[in-house]
């Protein structure tokens, strides 16, 4: 295989780093960072995506497997919270990947991971719904 060909498409040598024009616009400015840092940023993004996929599977599992445990409204709320959280995490992970890539290129401090409070808040909300569903019927 041609070493210049990547999963992100064939290179166009006319642009900085051989990038297509749209990628050049998104990443313009600064200097090429150490390639190890670029790969580390990619792995961190993938870790967030796997977290989002786990939440997605959890949301589907709540609907598919807990029919005998929870009333339909509880299942719908819990499942929807988890699925919405998964979508938000995936979007946040993509935005964070881009912001970190830009910060590295410009030699700036890396941005704070704002998806951490999103994840924490979403999980707390799901747990509150779950506790309410388990405890309230017994009270």
């Amino acid at each position, binding site marked *: 295989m041609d*070493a210049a060909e990547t999963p992100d498409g064939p290179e166009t040598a006319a642009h900085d780093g051989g990038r297509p024009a749209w990628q050049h616009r998104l990443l313009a400015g600064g200097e090429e960072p150490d*390639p190890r840092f670029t790969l580390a940023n*990619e792995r961190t993004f993938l870790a967030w995506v*796997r977290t989002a996929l786990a939440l997605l599977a959890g*949301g589907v599992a709540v609907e*598919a*497997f807990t029919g005998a445990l929870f009333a339909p409204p509880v*299942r719908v709320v819990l499942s929807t919270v988890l699925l919405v959280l998964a979508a938000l995490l995936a979007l946040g992970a993509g935005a964070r990947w*881009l912001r970190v890539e830009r910060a590295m290129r410009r030699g700036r401090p890396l941005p704070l991971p704002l998806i951490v409070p999103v994840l924490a808040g979403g999980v707390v909300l799901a747990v509150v719904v779950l506790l309410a569903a388990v405890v309230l019927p017994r009270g």
Partner: protein
Amino acid sequence: MRLHHDPGLQPERTVMSWGCTVLALGVLSLTFLRWWPAVGAWAFGPAVVAAVGGAAVLATQRRRYVAHADGIAREQARPALASVACMVALVVGLAGLGITATLLHAA
């Protein structure tokens, strides 16, 4: 393919990280399939989408490793913008289909 000189094995770790993500997509696909008897096509569709997404990642794994090893050797890696954008779109799309199926199932 150029041989890289990174003792931290970054290309291999990154490709394996994509592989782990494919496994997560596989689990998600099977979870959607388990929901099939209750919601029908609204579960089968996302299951197929997740499986096809995982297969697409698997099909590009060798190219990905070659590109990463080449990037380390040249000291200039290309950020995987298209792959990242596709993965975000895939997860958001699957979540949207899941929410739709949940609401239809409840109605």
